[in-house]
């Protein structure tokens, strides 16, 4: 009667995995596009204060970051426990903030310069004294759009 292939090999046919690399590459490209490289290594501890009325930082290219906080555990032996300011990859003094802003502004596209934004990433246990000093420096440098970085409170 019917001729069924009874004598053929039995067992699972092997799964074709030749497209798996393409799938993974797609994922890879997705992540490369939505994420940004961490630009600086943190030299100060930064634990964000908590708040509820938050706004998103719009354009990354317009934002300059200033970090403030105690030096990290490894650096505390060298730098002490005082609150420090970190600009890019190094520790800095309040007096350097103004020059830093000017420099960053120079590096921006000219049409973007008026929209410059400064994000203050300040540790939540910092005393306001140093924050106020930095704010005054920012005013002197005409960097008036600032953003206090904070985390969402549940």
């Amino acid at each position, binding site marked *: 009667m019917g001729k069924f292939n009874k004598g053929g090999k039995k067992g699972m046919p092997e799964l074709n*995995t*030749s497209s*798996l*690399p393409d799938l*993974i*590459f797609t*994922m*890879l490209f997705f*992540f*490369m596009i*939505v*994420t*940004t*490289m*961490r630009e600086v290594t943190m030299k100060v501890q930064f634990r964000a*204060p*908590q*708040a*509820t*009325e*938050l*706004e*998103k*930082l719009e354009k*990354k290219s317009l*934002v300059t970051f200033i970090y403030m906080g105690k030096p990290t555990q490894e650096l505390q032996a060298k730098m002490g426990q005082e609150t420090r300011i970190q600009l890019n990859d190094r520790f800095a003094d309040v007096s350097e903030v103004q020059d830093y802003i000017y420099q960053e502004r120079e590096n921006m596209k000219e049409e973007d310069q008026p929209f410059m934004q400064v*994000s*203050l990433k*300040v*540790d*939540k*246990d*910092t*005393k*306001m*004294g140093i*924050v*106020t000093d930095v*704010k*005054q420096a*920012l*005013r*002197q440098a*005409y*960097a*008036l*759009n*600032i*953003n*206090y*970085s*904070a*985390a*969402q409170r549940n």
Partner: protein
Amino acid sequence: MARKKRSMPGINATSTADIAFMLLIFFLTTTSMNTDRGLARRLPPPPDPNVKQQDNIIVKERNVLQVRINKDNQLMVGSEYMDISQLRAKAKEFIANPNDDVNLPEKHTVNIPLLGGDCMVTKNHVISVTNDVGTSYQAYIDVQNELVAAYNELRNEKAQASFGKPYAECSEDEQKAVRDFHPQKISEAEPKKYGK
């Protein structure tokens, strides 16, 4: 000579997936998702050294809400001690002045077409935040946050009453109208040195 057709040996591609995975994991660990959020603020321009400080700009006392934070993170609003949880209600009452209290900000007529012509707006009110050198940053952010929350709630209420939808869902023009009705005026006073 009989020539056998040579067949290309296929390249074994099973490990490309592993290589791609490793790249993927590398990028996942070195990058950060964009989750930067915060409280946006605008600083006043620096004082001009050529212009003599004018101290005689008289702001009527009823138009100013003084919020002071001391070094122990205690809060003084106006002339009374207050807990942070009470600040929002106090600020809302101050900004809106719903009962035309003589001790709360005076109202001026402002023409906002989208809200039906002339509106009574407390346009000269100022909330002044003063902090001590020893105030902790978290306490300062808490205060700023409560004040922004007070404005946001008032704007939401106004948008709900006028346009029947929350502020965030209003159109650009409607948002502007509501912003004109409740202008945000938080002033960061010139820092003072206490006890020196």
